[in-house]
């Protein structure tokens, strides 16, 4: 029997007992459908995290802090130097007490570490308010735009770090409050930022709005300023500070070669920690979050796989019945010279075909259901998280689902197929 005939016969045979085949296909369908949705949710959330990561920071950047000497467990000893970060540079939410401020000497030391391309202090600025023309003033956070980071933009462009003009991107939630009709309307307008120094003097700076940023998961509602604007704000804020206080920073930003091997990064981090610094990439920060998502998705996938295993037994059962019913036919074909290997192929192909039907239908309908869920959720539950597509489909993982199900079906089919292949033709022909 040639390959085409083998496949055609297998397909034809599987459609012979329709009810039975449909029920088996249905059980596989349920497993494949669930697996499509659960892995789709995993893909969707991870994609979202990835775009968010890109908007938080560049992939060639390490945030360096100086850890308190004692990072071991147990009570931490008092270190007079550890309170030094009592400067305006401590980032909001940073664990102040365990950090030691970085000085210019520290920056030089960090810059000398192997693999460090450049080191810059991270300037932390906290303006009093932002305002457009004579409109309402709002409190706002301002973050610095690091070249290489991708801002999730609703309109316009990213602030240009090489530009000598003050440029800023406003979060989308500020567009209407600031008095613009829509995102595009905001572009090109002038934003006034007010900032107070230590002596209590308030100064104002004017920046051009070049972009409107989406609110990411971590992107929050911060304004994104380009380098010159950040520096200008910092200078305005630092008026009256002693030189040493002005030049002490909570964090420094280190650039490295992102194309290098993973080990290079490890060496770089080791080099930093030898000097008492801690370097973390954005991925390190987000990594733990991803691990939780992956864990949840894994558990969900496990349920789907259990459903598929149950379906596998369904295939075994269906085909065993089929082998039983077709005992005489198998005997006849063997008597007429069909080898055991071909008989095995005939039944395992039938199993694989049933698996293909179940998984293809499951994946197809799973995708439709996922897209439907996305459409509904985008306007309701997830309306506050623009940019999040809850169920996303990755062709590779969909193909994997189909292939895995077909593989499982093949495995399930081997039991009945072996039984058929080993049948004695004479006994089969005598079978009533």
């Amino acid at each position, binding site marked *: *029997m*040639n390959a085409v*005939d083998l496949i055609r*016969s297998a397909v034809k045979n599987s459609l*012979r007992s329709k009810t039975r085949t449909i029920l088996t296909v249905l059980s596989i369908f349920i497993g494949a459908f669930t697996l499509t949705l659960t892995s789709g949710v995993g893909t969707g959330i991870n994609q979202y995290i990835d775009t968010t990561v890109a908007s938080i920071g560049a992939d060639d950047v390490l945030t360096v802090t100086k850890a308190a000497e004692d990072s071991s467990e147990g009570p931490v000893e008092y270190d007079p130097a550890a309170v030094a970060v009592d400067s305006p540079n401590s980032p909001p939410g940073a664990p102040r007490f365990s950090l030691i401020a970085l000085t210019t000497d520290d920056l030089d030391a960090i810059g000398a570490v192997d693999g460090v391309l450049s080191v810059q202090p991270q300037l932390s600025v906290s303006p009093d308010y932002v305002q457009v023309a004579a409109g309402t003033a709002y409190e706002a956070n301002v973050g610095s735009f690091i070249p290489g980071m991708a801002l999730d933009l609703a309109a316009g462009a990213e602030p240009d770090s090489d530009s000598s003009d003050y440029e800023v991107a406003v979060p989308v939630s500020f567009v209407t409050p600031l008095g613009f009709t829509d995102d595009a309307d905001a572009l090109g307008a002038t934003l006034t930022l007010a900032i107070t120094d230590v002596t209590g003097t308030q100064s104002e700076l004017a920046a051009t709005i070049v972009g409107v940023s989406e609110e990411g998961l971590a992107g929050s509602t911060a304004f994104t300023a380009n380098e010159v604007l950040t520096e200008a704000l910092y200078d305005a804020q630092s008026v009256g500070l002693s030189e040493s206080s002005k030049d002490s920073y909570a964090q420094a930003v280190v650039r490295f070669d992102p194309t290098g091997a993973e080990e290079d990064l490890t060496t770089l981090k080791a080099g930093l920690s030898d000097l008492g610094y801690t370097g973390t990439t954005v991925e390190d920060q987000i990594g733990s979050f991803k691990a939780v998502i992956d864990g949840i998705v894994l558990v969900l996938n496990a349920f789907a796989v259990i459903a598929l295993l149950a379906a596998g037994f369904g295939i075994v059962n269906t085909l065993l019945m089929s082998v039983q019913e077709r005992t*005489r*036919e198998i*005997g*006849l*074909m063997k*008597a*007429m*010279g*069909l*080898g055991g290997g*071909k008989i095995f192929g005939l039944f395992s192909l039938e199993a694989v075909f049933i698996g293909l039907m179940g998984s293809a239908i499951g994946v197809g309908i799973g995708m439709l259901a996922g897209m439907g869920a996305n459409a509904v959720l985008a306007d309701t539950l997830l309306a506050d998280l623009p940019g999040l597509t809850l169920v996303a489909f990755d062709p590779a993982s969909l193909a994997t689902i189909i292939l895995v199900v077909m593989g499982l079906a093949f495995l399930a089919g081997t039991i009945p197929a072996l039984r058929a292949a080993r049948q004695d*033709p*004479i006994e089969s*022909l005598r079978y009533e």
Partner: protein
Amino acid sequence: MSLPVLAARDIHKSYGRGATRFDALKGVSLDIQQGESIAIVGKSGSGKSTLMHLLALLDNPSTGSVELSGRDASGLSGRVVNQTRNETFGFVFQQFFLTPNTSVLDNVTLPLQIAGVGGAERKRRGMAVLEQLDLADKARNKATDLSGGQKQRVVIARALVNNPSVIFADEPTGNLDSATGTVVEDILFSLQREKGITLIIVTHDEDLAARCDRRVYIRDGLITDSLHAVPATPAAASTVSEVRA
């Protein structure tokens, strides 16, 4: 005499073991020449089908050997045995063994499909043999929808489709009324005459057996008698038509 196409050399066949052991054949020897028609005759349960299955290489004897053109079949590889059954032998079993819900044509061309013959060629040869058996108009029907006599002709068409040189027929007329039975017999014997096919017919019908070149009587697993028909003139046929072998 020339080399027999098939030969049994003192074959024994027993089923089961211990207390339930049953000796179906107890030492059978038989030579079958190319082109002859031979009837294996005996009561029910005497071991006719068992002998036929052994000669057709469907089963292995417990002791003794079956020779295919002088070669011991037990020395042949499974692939060669399968190929022989597929290309050299044609089978008509005691039951029809037609695949339900499958067309007459597909049933008839099953041996060709097993041989790996392509679809178009299969159809051409299948239709040719159906034509020969007056069944061309039934080619598209489901095999199970035919009458008993038609089914038997389909089964014969299936045995002929691969142009075998040996046809094994187990009770080919057992299920048929005498008129239809005669038609089927005529088809088989004309094929034997025209194409030189070797015909091995298992039957308990004396009339059918009498039309064969040779009759082998079997009882309780032993050959009791072997009669040669005289290739007689029509006049002599009814009188002294038999001689002891």
